[in-house]
């Protein structure tokens, strides 16, 4: 990526991004310029930590509290599952059950199960059963948003 810096003597600071196709890298840059928070604030062992979405294996809502499961810790998040799903869908977050969101990028293996269900094995070895209803949505996402033609 080419970087051009142009110092001006007057006028407002401005950042112009020329792009041929919007990639996650450019999107991250845009979010940073806009001041959007990329990392998710969470509480772990009574400390505030900031989690990168890529580190999260899955999110689960238990008794109204959202927990983020990472490789080595479980942190509590104040945002709702709905808000996280809306925000991070393009980063691979997928609602696999009423109270759970999976990070597709952290799935190591998928297995078709009887009854149209799908068993997802995460990189940490945990297995999650995705029901037929959510399995259809997963197939749509993996196909890149095309019509499901099963």
């Amino acid at each position, binding site marked *: 990526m080419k970087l051009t810096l142009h110092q001006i003597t007057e006028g407002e600071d401005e950042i112009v991004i020329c792009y041929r196709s919007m990639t996650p*890298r450019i999107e991250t840059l845009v979010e940073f310029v806009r001041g959007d928070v990329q990392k998710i604030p969470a509480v772990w062992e009574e400390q505030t930590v900031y989690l990168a979405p890529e580190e999260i294996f899955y999110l689960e809502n238990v008794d109204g509290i959202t927990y983020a499961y990472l490789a080595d810790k479980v942190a509590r998040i104040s945002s709702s599952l709905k808000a996280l799903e809306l925000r991070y869908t393009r980063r691979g977050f997928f609602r696999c059950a009423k109270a759970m969101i999976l990070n597709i990028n952290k799935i190591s293996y998928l*297995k078709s199960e009887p009854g149209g269900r799908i068993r997802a094995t995460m990189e940490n070895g945990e297995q999650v059963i995705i029901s037929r209803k959510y399995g259809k949505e997963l*197939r749509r996402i993996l196909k890149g948003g095309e019509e499901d033609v099963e």
Partner: protein
Amino acid sequence: MWNRLGCYFEAHMRCWRRLKRYLSTEIMIEYRACLYFCCILFFYCCYLGLHGDFFARVPVLVEMILLTYAMCYLQLYVFQNFDETDHLGRWGLAGILVCSVCYTAASWIFLWFDRKKTVTALFCIYMVMVYVSVRLANKIKRRIDTELLNQMLDKYKSEQKKGGQEPEKSAVS
């Protein structure tokens, strides 16, 4: 009043969800009943054809479809849907044998094959093979689906890494 409406709505949604689950199971049972009915019908037609008879009796067909319908309920609720499971345990094996014997007994009682012992015994073996074949077909289908899912998953992950996905909105407002 709003609380009452909310409770009413919640109860209504619960009923609707239960109805959807029931319908889903019912439809699955009916599809399966039709599949097994076709298999039995094939055997029956072969039997008739070999005896130079090209007319099937409607009461026999009705008996067959009703029996397959009842047997599918038995398969699902007693024998844990053995024709769709990955692993066939003792209970699944018992299911195959019991269901095959039930069909054989029905064929004897209702004179489908004129109580011919050889044909009835062959029918029993045929039903066992039907169950094994249906299980195998379902297993193969799931294996193919698994391969496709993992291919799509690998492609999705590599595209995410490369950053080849188009966003829904433009970056510069």
